[in-house]
């Protein structure tokens, strides 16, 4: 009844089109049957203030592809969707910057800026990925080796707090140290501190030339070393090493490369890959397929981890993950590894337990942390999806408390159950 009354208040405030009631969607055990869709940034803030006033918590949703990331929610009554915050307000081809609303898809931004010779340096898996969702999740894909991380593309940000306040940080210029770099804090916070309304982005010039190649390498240590060397070629935008894949020998790897930049550099590096690694041409769409695979493998009901890994420890990490039964995609240049595990029917709980216990030390040994990006709800029970954050938890708590005092933004999802 409380929720129905609150939804009526949202309708009164923002119009009937701002609320959609639907069949329950199960979000890791929380059935949610209403989506609030504010039509503009001001309405986002109004919605948040109203939800907080009613004591209702929101799952913040962009394209929806990463709605399930994180710990089991400790609350959550409605979905707050940015789907109506769509559009590129400003695009300045002479400057290489644009101002985009949070619900705009990366694909739409790319289509718009490509026409003027620019590229948007964001590469999240999922065709429906939005700008807000990509920044909130700090989502990366294969091309982020060349593009940089999402935070690097960000010039300025507008956000709304759960209290209904709206604030800006950064700006539209490409160099800026005016005040704290709040954009870094919100990027990768999974909507736990604020809801992103819009952002200023720094674009990159489209390259003269793009080529895609692949090589099959044997011997994990040699493959890792060769992949790392390849990733450091001047025109390397993607170097992705796949191992533990059905059809590949245990110690073999398929390595996919994308070379971009000035034609002379691309051709020189392609010749090097062909001569040194026996690489052969792939269609340009291979990278898109790779990115989508990264976002969906190992499929429904499996586990997928994002792991930070130093290049020098990549081979050991591959070996440890493969021993635990992983399918692996690794980006040596990005220092990131994605490991997917299918769970056997009948033995799922024990298998999940073994996998979590294998991944955590392997990630620590590799020099980085780990985040379980995808897991069935039952596997999240009593488990931390964000790796070991114990030492920093008091500070995370303090931030959550100050930025979202009512704990109504994605409650429980973030590290430490925040």
């Amino acid at each position, binding site marked *: 009844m409380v929720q129905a009354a609150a939804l009526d208040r949202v309708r009164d405030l923002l119009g009937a089109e701002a609320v959609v009631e639907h069949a329950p969607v199960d979000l890791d055990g929380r059935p949610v049957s209403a989506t609030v869709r504010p039509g503009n940034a001001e309405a986002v803030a109004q919605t948040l203030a109203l939800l907080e006033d009613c004591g209702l918590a929101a799952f913040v949703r962009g394209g929806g592809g990463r709605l399930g990331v994180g710990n089991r929610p400790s609350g959550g009554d409605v979905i707050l969707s940015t789907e109506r915050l769509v559009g590129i307000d400003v695009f*300045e*081809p*002479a*400057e*290489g*910057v644009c101002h985009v609303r949070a619900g705009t898809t990366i694909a739409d931004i790319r289509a718009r800026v490509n026409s003027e010779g620019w590229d948007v340096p964001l590469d999240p898996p999922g065709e429906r990925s939005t700008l807000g969702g990509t920044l909130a999740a*700090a989502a990366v894909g294969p091309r982020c080796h060349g593009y*940089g*991380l999402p935070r*690097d593309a960000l010039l300025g940000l507008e956000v709304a707090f759960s209290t209904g*306040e*709206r*604030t*800006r*940080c950064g*700006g539209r*210029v*490409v*160099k*800026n*140290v*005016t*005040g*704290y*770099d*709040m954009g*870094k*804090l919100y*990027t*990768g*916070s999974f909507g736990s*501190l604020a809801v992103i309304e819009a952002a200023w982005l720094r674009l990159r*010039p*489209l390259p003269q030339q793009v080529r895609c190649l692949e090589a099959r390498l044997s011997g994990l240590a040699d493959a890792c070393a060769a992949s790392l060397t390849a990733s450091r070629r*001047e025109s390397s935008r993607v170097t992705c090493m796949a191992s533990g894949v059905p059809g590949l020998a245990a110690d073999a790897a398929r390595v996919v490369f994308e070379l971009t*930049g*000035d034609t*002379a*550099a691309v051709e*020189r590096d392609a010749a090097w890959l062909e001569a040194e690694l026996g690489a052969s041409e792939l269609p340009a769409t291979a990278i898109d397929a790779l990115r989508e695979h990264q976002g969906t493998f190992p499929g429904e009901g499996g586990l997928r981890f994002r792991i*930070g890994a*130093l*290049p*020098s420890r990549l081979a050991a990490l591959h070996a440890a993950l493969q021993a635990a039964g992983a399918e692996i995609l690794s980006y040596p240049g990005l*220092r990131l590894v994605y490991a997917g595990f299918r769970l056997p029917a009948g033995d799922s709980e024990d298998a999940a337990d073994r996998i979590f216990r294998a991944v955590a030390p392997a990630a620590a040994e*590799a*020099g*980085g*942390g780990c985040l379980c990006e995808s897991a069935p709800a039952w596997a999240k029970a009593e488990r931390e999806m*964000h790796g070991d*954050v114990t*030492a*920093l938890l008091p*500070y*995370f708590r*303090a*931030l959550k408390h*100050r*930025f979202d005092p009512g704990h109504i933004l994605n409650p429980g999802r973030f*590290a430490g159950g925040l």
Partner: protein
Amino acid sequence: MPDLLATLRAIVGDAGCLSRPEELLVYECDGLTLHSGWPAAVVLPRSRSEVQRVVRTCREHGVAFVPRGAGTGLSGGALADAGVVIECSRMNRIHEVNTVDRYAVVEPGVVNADLSAVTAAAGLFYAPDPSSQQVCTIGGNIAENSGGPHTLKYGTTTNHVLALELVLPDGSVVELGSPTGWAPGYDLVGAFVGSEGTLGIVTCATVKLEAIPERIETLLAVFPDVVTACRGVGEIIQAGLVPAALEIIDRRTIAAVEASVYRAGLPQDAGAVLIIELDGSAVVLADQVARVREITTREGATRVEVARDDAERQRFWRARKGAFGAMGRLAPDLYVHDAVVPRVKLPEVIEKICAIGDRYELTLSNVFHAGDGNLHPNISFDRRNPEELARVVAAGREILELCVEAGGVITGEHGIGSEKRDFMGLVFDEADLAAMLRLRDCFNPDGVCNPGKIFPTTRFCVESNPKARGYARVPIG
């Protein structure tokens, strides 16, 4: 006071604790001589443990503390008015250089240029290169998110810091980030870089190393005036080129440089020169040099020179990097301003800035990171002349207002410090600043760590805890 000094001396040793007036004089200000304040004491710890003990001692005595690197900052960020300066210059060890994973683990007092000198043999360098890189320290660079001429291609300090160890204002130690550059949870490394020493004191940093480019080409394009040079920059950017640096030196700066020990043989009849640096492999640079030559000539350059060797390249850069020093000949004081505008607005903004200088009858020259839209209008003056000083301050404010109206911001690399805290309202409203204070209050709730910086003291009642300003003014001695 005697108790405090005695305790500090017991921690850092007699040689590491300065308190006599003649010792403190050098700490009266940083590179911004307009703002000054007298610290109670300066301590030079040698380890994280000593930093911790100094911080705890200051807290016990209710005294503010201010981290300081080499003191080359240009916004009064290291000013400690009655507080204790914690200078990290004795923490200058390079703990590790990992050439495979391309990172270095350094203490905060390592001099910026020294790190690249150490890693050069392995073909690696540390990319952020502020003009003061021969003396400024990595810790100070992290606090200020320092840039430099090569920011255009390589980014600022924040793009090169992987992990941090800090002593927080309560004396506790935290480790943030990881050498992989990614760690689960909030991106606190990103939030700490550029926080101007208000969230804690860096005691160790893991920073990225980059491969030294195979080849560097440096061009010098001579333009009839600075506005035309700015248009040339816009065309280079729009052509999709990403030079390592795009730096403009105007006529007045050229005159100062050519009359100084930094003389570089620049044409004195030029209205401005544009230094364009391209780096990468030889196979791409020939084409890029040709494109830049074609663009700059088309946009009005009367001459374009390509450095024939490293000596000539150094000569071009001597003019750029020696510019601030050369201006010391023009007047006793130099106010190095710092603001950013959208690059497309450079031509009109630079024209208006020159007009502001003329209207206030000031000696104003420009040498700046044009590729980033990062302006440095430099005003030569004599602070002993109060009437001239008033004109300098008024012109400075007008310049900032102009840049903000053009869509820009009030600092691109020098930081806010004490210099621009009262101009923050030009860019941000109270809610924006309150959000920043929420972050600060998680780590420095009573404002005891570097008080009086970043947040305005007028219009907005900034220091959320009134004790904060009291800390800065605790009477000692």
